[in-house]
């Protein structure tokens, strides 16, 4: 069975289309491996027996013209799935069973895929280590006691540990790319407006985007092609001409201009990351790309601006959890007391912290000093990218300032935890697409990722660059199955 779960999505699709494998065989293989992988704590909710039933049904009358024919897939527990509990990693949604389906997951099922279950994540996607989940830590398949990154930590662990052939995450400040980097997998954050936000539990609406997380770039392109659609249920969904990302994937990137921003050379960055970046530049040159030094002068202001904008939007989005319409309710002496106890007992510490920051920066007398200021800084950051893109086609940076850290290591220091997203956050503030690809290992043998940032709506361009570089990098993830007894 293990030879099934180690296959890429593309190869599984091919094998099912050529009738060398049935959906049932594939689904059972992933269910079986997921059953043996409880120690990773990747799943919040399993839907295994339904998945096997659906795979049998698929095999009875297989539609092999679909893009994901009978492919089993687990998804981040931030996507509403009809009749399947959706918790967002929070106690407050412990018993929430959506009566509707998110557009992104619906697109996936429409192409023939089958839900395996819902994957662990930081509570309301607020975290960089999966440690804020009400449902416990996720173990990184790379090594025991290591965080998988966050917030899409369960998703990254599930792909890296081969519990699902591919998955989807969401990325508000790096929540797809940072865990992808920590687990030796590929993660794409699409352009804002590319994937519908309908049915995704909201964190920060002007930053949230769904995207694929996969073993390789080819798989990533295929899933992006499936999930990116215009959707009138999301007023910020953008009606642009979407590419056939997997069909148009090419390794020919000759003459492409790649910018190297000097501001990403931050103080205290481990030497290994610097080395990795240099190697990445060489790989890009080997592929025929032209390297150009650029400047993104306001980079260091991105993270502080993000920690105003994201909590502000979160405090507003999370006002809906009041113990009345859905979710957890605590007993209270009166209505206000009920609200306050519900939110105090229902939300975890990090979520409460962010709601408080957001409430403060939006409160009377502070709005101009914080929120308005941050939106102005956001403009400057976007201008930096606009300026850079007059000279280059894409930008190459490290994905994270370090490799995966130990569970508990940064838990009590919010600011040091926030610094994880230093290279990923500017992309969200400017609404751009970016992909993280595994590019090497550090001295401890932990994966390190490189990030390629593109122009808005140019997903194809960064997928091609990643595809070409992946070929040169020849990264192989070292998974020892330590958690399987």
């Amino acid at each position, binding site marked *: 069975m293990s030879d099934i779960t180690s296959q890429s999505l593309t190869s599984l699709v091919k094998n099912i289309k050529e009738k060398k494998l049935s959906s049932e065989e594939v689904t059972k293989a992933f269910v079986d491996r997921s059953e043996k992988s409880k120690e990773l704590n990747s799943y919040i909710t399993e839907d295994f027996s339904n998945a096997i039933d659906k795979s049998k049904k698929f095999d009875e009358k297989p539609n092999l013209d679909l893009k994901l024919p009978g492919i089993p897939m687990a998804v981040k527990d931030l996507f509403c799935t009809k009749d399947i509990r959706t918790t967002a990693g929070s106690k407050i949604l412990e*018993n*929430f*069973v959506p*009566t*509707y389906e998110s557009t992104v997951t619906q697109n996936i099922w429409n192409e023939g895929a089958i839900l395996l279950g819902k994957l662990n994540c930081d509570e309301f996607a607020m975290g960089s280590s999966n440690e804020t989940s009400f449902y416990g830590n996720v173990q990184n398949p790379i090594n025991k006691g290591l965080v998988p990154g966050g917030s899409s930590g369960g998703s990254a662990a599930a792909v890296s540990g081969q519990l699902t052939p591919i998955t989807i995450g969401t990325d508000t400040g790096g929540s797809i790319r940072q865990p992808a980097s920590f687990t030796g997998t590929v993660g794409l954050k699409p352009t*804002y*407006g590319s994937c519908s936000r309908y049915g995704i539990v909201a964190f920060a609406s*002007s930053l949230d985007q769904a995207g694929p997380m996969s073993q390789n770039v080819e798989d990533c392109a295929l899933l992006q092609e499936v999930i990116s659609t215009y959707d*009138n249920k999301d*007023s*910020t969904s*953008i*009606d642009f001409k979407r590419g056939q990302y997997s069909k148009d994937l090419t390794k020919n990137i000759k003459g492409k201009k790649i910018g190297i921003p000097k501001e990403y050379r931050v103080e205290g960055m481990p030497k290994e990351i610097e080395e990795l970046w240099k190697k990445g530049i060489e790989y890009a040159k080997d592929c025929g790309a032209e390297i150009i030094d650029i400047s993104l002068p*306001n980079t*260091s*202001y991105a993270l*502080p*601006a993000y*920690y105003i904008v994201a909590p502000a939007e979160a405090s507003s989005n999370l*006002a809906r959890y*009041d113990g*009345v*319409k*859905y*979710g957890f*309710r605590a007993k*209270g*002496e*009166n*209505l206000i*007391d*009920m*609200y*306050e*106890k519900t*939110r*105090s007992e229902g939300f975890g510490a990090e979520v409460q*912290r962010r*709601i*408080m*920051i957001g*409430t*403060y920066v939006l*409160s009377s007398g502070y709005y101009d000093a914080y929120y*308005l*200021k*941050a*939106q*102005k*800084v*956001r*403009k*400057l950051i*976007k201008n930096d990218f606009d300026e850079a893109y007059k000279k280059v086609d894409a930008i190459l940076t490290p994905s994270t300032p370090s490799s995966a850290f130990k569970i508990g290591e940064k838990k009590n220091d*919010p*600011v040091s935890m*926030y610094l994880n997203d230093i290279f990923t956050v500017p992309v969200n*503030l400017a*609404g751009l697409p970016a992909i993280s690809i595994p590019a090497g290992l550090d001295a401890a043998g932990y994966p390190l990722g490189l990030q390629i940032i593109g122009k*808005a709506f140019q997903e194809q361009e960064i997928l091609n660059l990643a595809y070409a570089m992946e070929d040169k990098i020849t990264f192989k993830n070292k998974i020892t199955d330590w958690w399987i007894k």
Partner: protein
Amino acid sequence: MSIDLKTIKHISKLSRISVDEQKAEKLAGDLNSIFKFIEKLNELNTDNVDPLTSVAETTLKFRSDEVKNQNIREQIIKNSPEDNEDFFVVPKVVE
């Protein structure tokens, strides 16, 4: 700038999150370190900068304003912690 316990109590009221003394002190510490970090923005002069209101340079699409009766009352009520089949139920508000 420093966020004191009085401010924490004020924000907790606005946020509708109850906070006891111990939690308030922990929050004050955390928020102060976060705001110290955020205040780096004051280095930047943004006097002549327009705030960014949307990353996408498109105008919002219009759609017709239609009433869609989807008959989903049951679905809406389904996840409520307390209801009487037709309404959400909350603690008594009017004496």
